């Protein structure tokens, strides 16, 4: 017991010495984290790190949801090159509109605009179809790392730290002419730099907070109906 403890201590000391010599201690390597909603934490195991680029495909809602908690806690958010973004949805997801700026059409100035925005804002959401080359993207990512801002891209981004792709989504609540969109589950394929396998995570992206009928009661009603059917049969 005692020798095992001593060996563990020695091993830790050796590791620390090597880390100190190479300059790769984990604390220095990990940049500070921006707050993230607990339901989304499983998507980004390392958290929403400052300086990271995260590509999100196929879902504007997921982009907004990732930025929401940080904005609520006081971060500044800019949405660049997304003239279609639903600002009301952003507000409902928790983005503070007083700290949100939209730059819908950066046009040919996109690289310069992105550079300036990454300098000043904490979270930058980038739309599709910007006039930004791969070299510009690398430069923007480097700038984000240096200034500690998070870039959330609505399309693939070569060299992104994390790559989230919504593969499957299911809406609930609509019927044949009645109901309304209520809840949505999405399956997100998570790839990342330094993560070997693609993980698939099921996330409840929309949760109906004002449902009239509690869910268990509905299940009971259905079960009761079935029971009746079998009896009749």
């Amino acid at each position, binding site marked *: 017991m005692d020798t095992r403890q001593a060996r563990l201590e020695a091993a830790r000391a050796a590791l620390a010495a090597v880390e100190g010599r190479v300059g790769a201690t984990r604390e220095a390597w990990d940049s500070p984290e921006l707050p993230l909603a607990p339901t989304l934490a499983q998507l980004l195991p390392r958290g929403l790190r400052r300086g990271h680029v995260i590509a999100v495909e*196929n879902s*504007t809602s997921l982009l907004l949801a990732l930025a929401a908690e940080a904005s609520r806690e006081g971060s500044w958010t800019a949405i660049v090159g997304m003239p*279609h973004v639903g600002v009301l949805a952003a507000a409902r997801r928790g983005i503070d509109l007083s700290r949100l*700026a939209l*730059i819908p059409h950066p046009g040919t100035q996109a690289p310069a605009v992105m550079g300036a*925005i990454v300098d000043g804002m904490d979270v930058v959401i980038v739309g599709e179809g910007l006039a930004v080359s791969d070299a510009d993207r690398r430069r923007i990512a480097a700038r984000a790392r240096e200034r500690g801002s998070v870039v959330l891209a609505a399309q693939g981004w070569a060299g992104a730290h994390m790559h989230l792709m919504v593969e499957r989504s*299911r809406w609930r609540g*609509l019927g044949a002419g009645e*109901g*309304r969109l209520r809840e949505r589950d999405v399956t997100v394929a998570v790839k990342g730099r330094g993560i070997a396998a693609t993980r698939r995570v099921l996330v409840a992206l929309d949760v109906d907070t004002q449902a009239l009928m509690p869910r268990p009661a509905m299940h009971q009603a259905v079960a009761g109906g079935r029971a009746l059917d079998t009896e009749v049969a």
Partner: protein
Amino acid sequence: MSAPRLADAVVDTVRRVVLWVPDWPVVAAAMEAGIGPQAPAAVLHGKGLMAVSAAARAAGVRRGMRRRLAQRACPELVILGHDEGRDARSFEAVAAAAETVVAGVEISRPGLLMIPSAGAARFHGSEEALAEALMTAVAEEAGCESAVGMADGLLAAVMAARANEVVPAGESAQYLAPLPITALAHAAMERAQRAHVEDFVSVLVRLGLHTLGDLVALPGPDVLARFGPIGAWAQRMAAGQDVAPPVLRRSAEDIAVEHTFEDPAERIEQLTLVAAEVAEQLDRALLDASSRCARVRIGARTVTGAELERVWRTDVGVRAGAFAKHMTDRVRWQLEGWLSGTAQGPEPAPLTALRLTAEDVVPLGREQAFLWGGSSGADARAHRALERVQGLLGAEGVLAVAEQGGRSPRDRIHVLAWGQEGVPPRRIEHPWPGHLPEPAPATVLPIPQDVQVLDAGGTPVRIDRRLAMSAPPTWVRLQADPRDAKARAAHRHPSSGHVGGSDGPVWASPLPIEAWAGPWPVAERWWSDDASRRAFLQIAVRDEHGERDLAVLVAFTEGRWVLEAIYD
């Protein structure tokens, strides 16, 4: 009602000076009508007289009398109309006169000024000297008689002013105790509050409480339990205590700079030079007044006589040197917008005059910072970045958004250029019947796009005026992605029906509808030109691979279907 706020507030009682101009409505009206103070006059409001001059009172005219009764008592009585705006306006002169003696006064209501006495009395030597200086200044500069009183607490000070007395410190309670309970009404500053207090006082009188001392002698918790917040307020007032500290009025006025063009100007280069010059003038004027402003109103007049106006926020007080440049940019953007006709407003026309007005002027170093501490470094950094992008793209390149009332997702967002001031035109609090249910769509098309909603046989579904659908929707056909070469080729192919190509939209292959809800009718602004009648439908379809549900919001309007938003 403000009574709960009054009851909650527990503040230190402040010693104050009250300057009271007796019968202020009559004095103001007589001054405006050019009648001397010796002539009997009265102000009529509704059925009764609301204020009576001293001469008229001597002739037997009383407050609350009917017009005919008053004229019988005093045939030469001049009856003047009531105008609250005039009372407030003319009282500014009295406040300004008092401000020559002390810095910072509170206008409690037209006719009554309140001044914290501690510093001012020390400066003038004694409270009596301060009172004398105030009365002299008001008599000489505003031309009206006034009375000054001093005491601890609001009610005692007001009553002291009515009696022209100085109540020694700490004796307010004894001073108030023998006064009739009707005096409580003098502590109410607004008309609604006053009526409320008068009702309450009449109850007290019927209960046999005739002096303020009687009310103070009652146990406090019992008064609160029986009469609620107003009882607690009245008891505090009657004991000579305060419920709120005095609010001092800001004395600074708006600073304006105007430039008149000799020849009407329409070239932007010419205007840019003028913009820089005017901005610098304003900067200098602000610096001379050693103040800064929270907002700048930029106004311009065109040769056609139209006025163009916009308000910009300025957050650059700390960076003094940047102000002129900052304002120059804003003036230039705004003029560019007007002259190019991109911004909303009247027809573009050459300008004859340019005017900058600094609003919300505060002394330097007294800027309103954030509630908790100063503005953070992150905020300043973000503002700077956005200003830089505005420099690259123009004012309208960076937008600030706010939520407003409305029914469709597009209507519920109010967009303004970053840094521009404006109030959303539609209130959120209004009910907006028929607004679309949550969740809000994450993609909202700025311009709705044509879409096909088809029934099982492939004919477009129609909705009639009574919201009956011609058939349940079965297929939906969205417009193809413009980058989709396959869809473009199919569109050009002779089998598509239009040989030689057509300019119509390129349709993607139809998708089967999984589920749908609606129609939800929204008929808006039928009385105006921009009337719209729409019926919304929420539709969920499955994409070609059967993996992702695609939920869309479509609307039927004027006989066609449009795609409004996507829940992606």
